[in-house]
């Protein structure tokens, strides 16, 4: 028997993840040891501290380019850029999650297992403070995402996928209002997510059969120098891709998105729309660019079709929506399509522009969902479109912010929506994918209509009897909104620093 040697571990490079996972474990201890009254404050402070510390660790490690911990984790430019993005967006999501001034006890229920509609349920919806387990769960999810974008072999990637998915399934079920919808969303997400994970795992097995290894570098070598049946390769690639496309909400694997986005507590929806998207696309980019670059001619048309389908489905179905959260869900589907257009450029510009898009879109979507948490009536958030009529007259400031975000989604210049779209479309034309850009432009025309309809509703309609009030945001929601709107504006007007950063980072290591 040979000696079992500990692989070389670069703790500095792993520090962002270690901090988050460590803090999440501490958070569980806090649940057990700290008295109920002070838990919320302690947990919130701990989570923020962890995210900020982790972000600092990313900055400290900014020059690192190495594969560590026995080949399981690659810390390179894209990893650090995406980890930084996830942490920045995660910090803003945490502000929304931690807000307790909008509603007594916050947006989460204290015991998710209580039967819906029972007296106990009514009571806990009324005044009981929400569960503080959400903070460790969020930290675990964020930690999993960090690992997901840095995983250098397919099994680590699978583990990371599960680590960030499971907490999200749970978080989806915790909405204080509309309990049935929330539980349904969680169950749907869980079931479909499990299928997707199973597909992913099966794909990994096939690729292992083809390449004789699961590290992305080994797969790349096998693709470059084929030894075995290509059926294994294509089957494996397809199944792995399905797992990733599901997480990224690309058609035809997007059907969960509207239901889950609508049912989940809005801060969690924001977290999913911003951070999960970064994580899913980060992993997709890594798998495609590092391992399967050699068969690009085989998967480009297929994934191109997926992108076209996604953009059209997202745009067309967004037109028919009557619920704000569902509308944003379909908009997020369409945006996933634009992201895939950038990713399929398969060049350096493609990588950097997709990463830029992820950050820009993340901040905008956080602000959008942040505003949704504010528009409330006695039953919680008023998300039906008709309820938003004339809001511009009642609260011009918020209507202005929301209109600005919608214009950003529509890709009007001087917003980040325009610069990011320009970046991905430019990269795609560069990469010879002009047909994708044409469909992207068509989809942008279609989806402008629902956005514009909302703007009309906000400003040009008279407020009705049932128009809800916009709550005065607490400090944290206000901060989250300010950051989101400001980032959307700044990345639209002075995008150069972030573009340069993303271009400097756009090099995977193998």
């Amino acid at each position: 028997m040979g000696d079992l040697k500990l692989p070389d571990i670069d703790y500095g490079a792993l520090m962002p993840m270690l901090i988050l996972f460590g803090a999440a474990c501490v958070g569980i201890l806090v649940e057990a040891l700290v008295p109920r009254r002070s838990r919320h404050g302690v947990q919130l402070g701990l989570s923020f501290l962890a995210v900020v510390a982790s972000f600092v660790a990313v900055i400290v490690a900014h020059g690192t380019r190495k594969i560590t911990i026995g080949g399981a984790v690659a810390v390179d430019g894209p990893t650090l850029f995406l980890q930084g993005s996830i942490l920045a967006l995660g910090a803003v999501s945490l502000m929304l999650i931690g807000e307790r001034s909008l509603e007594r006890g916050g947006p989460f229920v204290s015991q998710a297992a209580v039967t819906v509609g029972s007296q106990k349920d009514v009571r806990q919806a009324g005044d009981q403070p929400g569960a503080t387990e959400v903070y460790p769960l969020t930290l675990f999810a964020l930690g999993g995402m960090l690992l997901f974008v840095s995983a250098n072999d397919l099994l680590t990637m699978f583990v990371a996928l599960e680590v960030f998915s499971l907490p999200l399934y749970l978080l989806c079920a915790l909405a204080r209002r509309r309990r049935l919808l929330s539980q349904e969303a969680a169950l749907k997400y869980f079931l479909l997510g499990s299928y997707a994970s199973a597909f992913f795992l099966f794909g990994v097995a096939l690729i292992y059969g083809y390449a004789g290894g699961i590290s992305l570098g080994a797969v790349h070598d096998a693709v470059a120098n084929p030894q075995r049946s290509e059926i294994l390769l294509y089957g494996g690639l397809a199944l792995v891709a399905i797992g990733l496309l599901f997480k990224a909400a690309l058609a035809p694997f997007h059907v969960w998105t509207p239901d889950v986005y609508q049912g989940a507590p809005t801060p969690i929806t924001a977290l999913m729309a911003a951070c999960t998207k970064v994580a899913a696309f980060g992993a997709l980019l890594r798998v495609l660019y590092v391992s399967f670059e050699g068969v690009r001619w085989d998967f480009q048309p297929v994934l191109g079709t997926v992108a076209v389908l996604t953009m059209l489905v997202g745009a067309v179905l967004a037109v028919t929506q009557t619920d704000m959260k569902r509308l944003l869900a379909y908009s997020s589907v369409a945006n996933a399509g634009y992201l895939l257009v950038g990713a399929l450029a398969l060049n350096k510009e493609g990588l950097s522009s997709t990463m830029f898009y992820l950050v820009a879109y993340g901040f905008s979507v956080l602000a959008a969902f942040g505003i949704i948490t504010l528009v409330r009536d006695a039953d919680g958030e008023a998300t039906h479109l008709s309820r938003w009529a004339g809001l511009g007259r009642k609260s011009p400031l918020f209507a202005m912010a929301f209109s600005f975000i919608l214009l950003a989604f529509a890709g009007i210049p001087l917003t980040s929506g325009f610069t990011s779209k320009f970046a991905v479309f430019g990269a795609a034309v560069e990469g010879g994918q002009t047909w994708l850009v044409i469909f992207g432009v068509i989809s942008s025309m279609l989806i402008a209509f629902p956005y514009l309809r909302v703007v009309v509703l906000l400003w040009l309609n008279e407020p009705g009897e049932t128009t809800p009030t916009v709550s005065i945001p607490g400090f944290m929601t206000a901060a989250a909104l300010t950051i989101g709107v400001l980032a959307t504006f700044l990345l639209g007007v002075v995008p150069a620093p972030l573009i340069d950063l993303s271009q400097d980072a756009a090099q995977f290591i193998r």
Partner: protein
Amino acid sequence: MNDFPFLSILTLLPLVGAVVVACIPRRKAELAKRVTLAWSLVVLALSIFMWVAFKAGGDRFQFHESYQWIPSWDARFTFAADGIALVMLMLIAVLMPVVILASWHDVDDGQRSAPTYFALLLAFEFTMIGVFAAADVFLFYVFFEVMLIPMYFIIGSFGGARRQYAAVKFFLYSLVGGLFMLASVIGLWVLGGHTFDFTRLLQSVGEIDQNTARWLFLGFFIAFAIKAPFFPFHTWLPDAGGAAPAGAAALLVGVMDKVGTFGILRYCLPLFPEASRWFAPAALVLAVIGILYAALLAIGQNDLKRLVSYTSIAHFGFIGVGIFAFTTQAGTGSVLYMVNHGLATGLLFIVVGMYVARRGSSLVSDFGGAGKLTPLLAGVLFFAGLASLALPGTAPFVSEFLVLIGTFTVHKAYAVIATVGIILAAAYVLWMVQRTTQGTLNPALEEVPAMRKDMTLREKVVVAPLVLLLLLLGFYPKPVTDVINPAVQATMQDVGKTDPGPTAVTANGGVAR
């Protein structure tokens, strides 16, 4: 003098003004109006300085400025003006104070916020100046899209009966066109050597292969054709022009639509010369159809503002014919037409607006014999109508004539058919004037107290500069043509067209060159 950063200051000034006015509290409406007016006069003064500083026979692009913006895309804040851009800048600078003064009481009902309205007008001026002053394709595109937003809110929040529908239609049409253009802008950037600088692009576009260039041309052309608008992309204009407040409609039709024709002259023709020649027959046919079709529709209108909108579409047909005839004469005529049409239609919209404000209705059938109650206003309406149908002595005559003779030297058939448009123009203008101001007095009019008041001093001040300019440029267009001519010649050289033989004489008899 040319080192002074005219264009960037001219662009930013109205933006600052818009922010200032928007910050004025709602109850101080009067203050907001005065600040806005003063601000627009400062902009006007600055542009007059610029007009003086511009050397008509000098470089094609003057007042060049360039600042770094997004280095990795080579997008820069580059401003420069040729003669065409300069006259458009002057047009917006002249129209703006006039429109502000004309809109003085438009939002006095207390329902809507006056500072917001006037801030939106200044924001609109900012985007207009930017779009004409930009010499960087990316920057141009940014202004091209952003200019929709202030106008969208002006129409949507302060417009007439069908304002929501009109605002959305306006926005979507323009946005669709803009997105076509976006695809072409990206293509141009990738194939033209990763730069947005107009002068550098001029040198590098020759390497784009013929077929691709035609597609790129089409993307730009559709955007501009929707904006102008040319038949068959015109259907948004009557709705928008009909629903917008009269002053804003004057700006919308008088200036914003010129971005379309300006864009064709500045971007389509020089960047894609071969494609322009290839598409020219189709563009000419569309333009001629537009002249006749819109004129016929204008005759059939019962709504004054919609009628004026249709007359504009007919006039844009003339401009289109002049551009795609590819002669210096017709080109100069077109640019001059852009200016004159801005003045004439602007005046027409403003006068119609005065009638609509008095009567509370824009339907022709609600008027009749109005001249008996308001002789002066009726006279101005008549004058605006005559200018609009290009009566000799008024400015539009010069431009229409130049377009027609410039076209006749190369395309006789189109010129002859287009001439029919003049007759139709006489029909729609004169019939409109007759039905509203002539004939027996509509008894319903007398019951409206406001109708008994003729022009106030403010209204006289509003129309006076436009009337004077229309007469001045009708008798002595040389100062303007001198500025336009070299720029048009340069553009025609880019297209690779020379004027046919000695039969064509330039407008001002021997050009400055």
